[in-house]
C-alpha cells in the first residue's frame, strides 16, 4: 500500500454526480440491476414460473460461464483495454481438458497445467501491450488467433476424450445448486475483493482513469497490467474447464459464443469502455440481463437469428438509457 498511499482514487464516484442534479440520475450499477429485475418480470409475464427457483437456478448455472469470463474482462476494460483472447483461451481449456485427461479421474494436475499456460498467455498479452506498446485490441486478437490455431495443431483437428468424472459430476445440474454456480460465486467474491478491496484494484482503476496521472503518482503500470491480463486469461481458462465438465466434450468454436457477450455484459453493467469507471458488481447484473433475455427468447421458441437481433437491440437500448458520454466541451 506504501507507494499509493497518497493517491486518492475514488473508483465508485461518478464524475457527473458532482454537478447539480438537473434530472433524475442513478448510478449505472443501480440501473443495471433495475434492468435485470425488469427483464426478469417480463419473463415471468410471458412464461409463468420463469422466476420460480427451479428455472432461475437453471438460468444462473447457464450464465455462470459467462459470468466467470466477464470477471476477467471487467478488470481489463477498467484499465482501458479489451481482451479478445478470452475466446481462444476458453476454447483451449474447454478442448484440452478432455483431450489431455482422456477420462482419467486422477489427472487433476492437467487442470493446473492448463491454468498455468493460460496465465502465461495473459503475460504475453501484457508484454506486447506494455513493452511493445501494441494496442490491447490487436495484441489480444493476435494471441487469440495463435491459441485458436495451437488447439487445432495440438489435437489434430478432432476433439476427443472425456473430462474427469468428478468434474463432470460436480458441474452437472443437480438440485438448485451446481458446480458452475458455486465456481461463479467463488470467482465473484475473489473478483470483488481484488478489485474493490485491494491495492491492486486501486491501481487498476488509477491506470484506467489516467495512465499519466497514475505514472506521476508512482504507479508502474506494467506489473498491474501483467496481473490484469493474467487474471483475465486464468478466468477464461477456468470458464473453459467448468464448461468442459458441464458439456462433457470439447468444441473448437465454443469461445466465440462468449467473446462479445463478455464485453457486452461488462458494459451493460455500467463499466465505461473508456476505462476508469465501473466494477464487477455491475457486471454481474449485465451477465444476468443477457442470460435472462436469452432464456426468454429460447422459451419463446425464437430462432438464433431473432435471439441475435434481440440481444443487440437490448444492449443498445440499455446503453442509451445510461451509458452516454458527456457532451463535447472546449
Amino acid at each position, binding site marked *: 500500500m506504501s507507494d499509493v498511499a497518497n493517491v486518492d482514487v475514488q473508483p465508485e464516484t461518478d464524475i457527473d454526480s458532482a454537478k447539480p442534479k438537473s434530472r433524475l440520475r442513478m448510478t449505472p450499477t443501480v440501473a443495471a440491476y433495475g434492468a435485470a429485475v425488469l427483464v426478469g418480470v417480463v419473463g415471468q409475464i410471458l412464461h409463468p414460473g420463469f422466476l420460480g427457483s427451479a428455472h432461475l437456478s437453471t438460468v444462473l448455472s447457464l450464465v455462470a460461464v459467462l459470468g466467470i469470463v466477464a470477471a476477467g474482462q471487467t478488470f481489463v476494460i477498467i484499465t482501458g483495454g479489451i481482451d479478445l483472447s478470452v475466446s481462444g483461451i476458453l476454447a483451449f481449456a474447454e478442448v484440452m481438458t478432455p483431450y489431455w485427461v482422456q477420462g482419467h479421474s486422477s489427472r487433476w494436475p492437467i487442470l493446473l497445467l492448463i491454468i498455468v499456460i493460460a496465465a502465461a498467455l495473459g503475460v504475453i498479452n501484457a508484454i506486447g501491450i506494455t513493452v511493445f506498446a501494441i*494496442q490491447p485490441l490487436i495484441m489480444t486478437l493476435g494471441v487469440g488467433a495463435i491459441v485458436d490455431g495451437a488447439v487445432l*495443431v495440438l489435437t489434430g483437428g478432432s476433439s476427443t476424450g472425456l473430462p474427469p468424472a468428478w468434474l463432470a459430476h460436480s458441474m452437472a445440474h443437480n438440485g438448485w445448486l451446481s458446480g458452475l454456480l458455486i465456481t461463479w460465486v467463488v470467482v465473484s467474491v475473489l473478483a470483488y475483493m481484488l478489485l474493490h478491496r485491494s491495492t491492486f484494484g486501486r491501481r487498476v482503476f488509477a491506470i484506467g482513469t489516467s495512465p499519466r496521472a497514475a505514472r506521476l503518482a508512482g504507479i508502474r503500470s506494467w506489473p498491474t497490467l501483467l496481473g490484469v491480463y493474467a487474471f483475465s486469461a486464468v478466468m477464461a481458462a477456468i470458464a473453459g474447464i467448468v464448461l468442459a465438465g458441464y458439456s462433457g466434450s470439447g468444441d473448437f468454436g465454443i469461445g466465440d459464443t462468449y467473446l462479445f457477450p463478455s464485453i457486452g455484459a461488462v*458494459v451493460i453493467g455500467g463499466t465505461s469502455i473508456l476505462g476508469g469507471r465501473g466494477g464487477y458488481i455491475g457486471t454481474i447484473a449485465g451477465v444476468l440481463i443477457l442470460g435472462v433475455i436469452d432464456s426468454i427468447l429460447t422459451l419463446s421458441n425464437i430462432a438464433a*437469428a431473432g435471439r441475435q*437481433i434481440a440481444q443487440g437491440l437490448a444492449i443498445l437500448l440499455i446503453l442509451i438509457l445510461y451509458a452516454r458520454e458527456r457532451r463535447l466541451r472546449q
Partner: protein
Amino acid sequence: MTTPARGQFVVNLGDATIYLTVIALFIVNVILQPRFAQVSNLLYLLGTTLPLVFAAVAQGLVMLTSSIDLASGSIISLTNVLIVVLIGHGSATAIVVAIVAGTVLGALAGLLTTTLRLPSIIVTLALSSVWAGVALYVLPTPKSGIPNSFSNLTNGYVPLYLSLALAVLWLWLARTRFGRRIYAIGSSENAAYTAGIPIVSTKVAVFAISGALLALGALMLSSTTGGGDPLSGSSITLEAIAAAVLGGVSFQGGKGSLIGAIFGAVALTLITNLVFNTGASAFYQGVVYGILLVLALALSRFTARRWIRMPVPAIGGGLR
C-alpha cells in the same frame, strides 16, 4: 499530421513498416514458391483479397476519426445476402440496393455514436449482433446464384484497377476539406469541436462512406464466391482491423493513411499464402498468422519513422 506548406503537394503514405513488411513477405513467398511471382498468380491473389481490401479501407476510414466499426463484418454478410436474394430482379437493382443498404447501415451507426454520445466500439458491437441476425433472416442457409458475369470484377487486371482507384480516391479525399476534418477529429475531437468543425455530420458521413465501401466489399465477395452466405463476413471484422493497424492506421485516430490499410490487407493475404505454400497443415494458419501479426506490430515500434513523404510538384492551388 503536420500541415504541408502552402503549394506543396504531399502524398501521405503513412508508416513505412507496412511497405517493408509487404516486400519481405513477398520475397519469402517467392523463395518458397518461385512460380508465386507470375503475374497471373499475383492478380488472382489480389482478386481474392479485394473484399478484405475494401473492408480494411472502410475500417481505416472510421479509425482515422478515433472510432471503430465492429459491425463491418455483419454489414458485409447482410449486403452479401441481399445481393444474392435480389439478383432475380436484375444485377443493377441488387447492386444498387446493397450499396444503399450499406450506406444507410453505416450512417445509422454514425448517428447513434454521435447524437447519443455512445462509444462507437460498443454501439457497433451491438449493431453487429443485430445485422448478423437480420442476415440470417434474409437468407438462413448459403445460396449460390450470382451470375458468372460478376466474376469479371475480380478477374484479370480489374482487381489492380479497383485497388488503384481506391488509392487515388483516398489521396484525393485526404486533400479535401472533408479529409482534413477527418484527421482533425481523429487527433482531438474536443479541439476539432472548438475549432468549429461539424463533428456530427463529418462522423456520420465517414460511417456512411465506410458502409458503402463495405457493400462494395460484399459485392467483391459475391463475385469471388458466386453466392451469398449469412456468415460470409463474420471473420472479416477483425481481419480488417488487423489490416488497418498493420497498415499504420492508429487506434488513437488522426494518424495513418488508407494506402497503408490497402497494403495491410495485402500483407495478411501474403501471410495466409505463405503458410499455404510451406505445405504445412492448414491448422498452422492461425498460429503463423497470429505470430506474424504480433511480430510485425512489435517491430514497427522500432522501425517506424513516422511518415514517408513524397514531395511532388504542386498541382493546382495547393492545400487550404
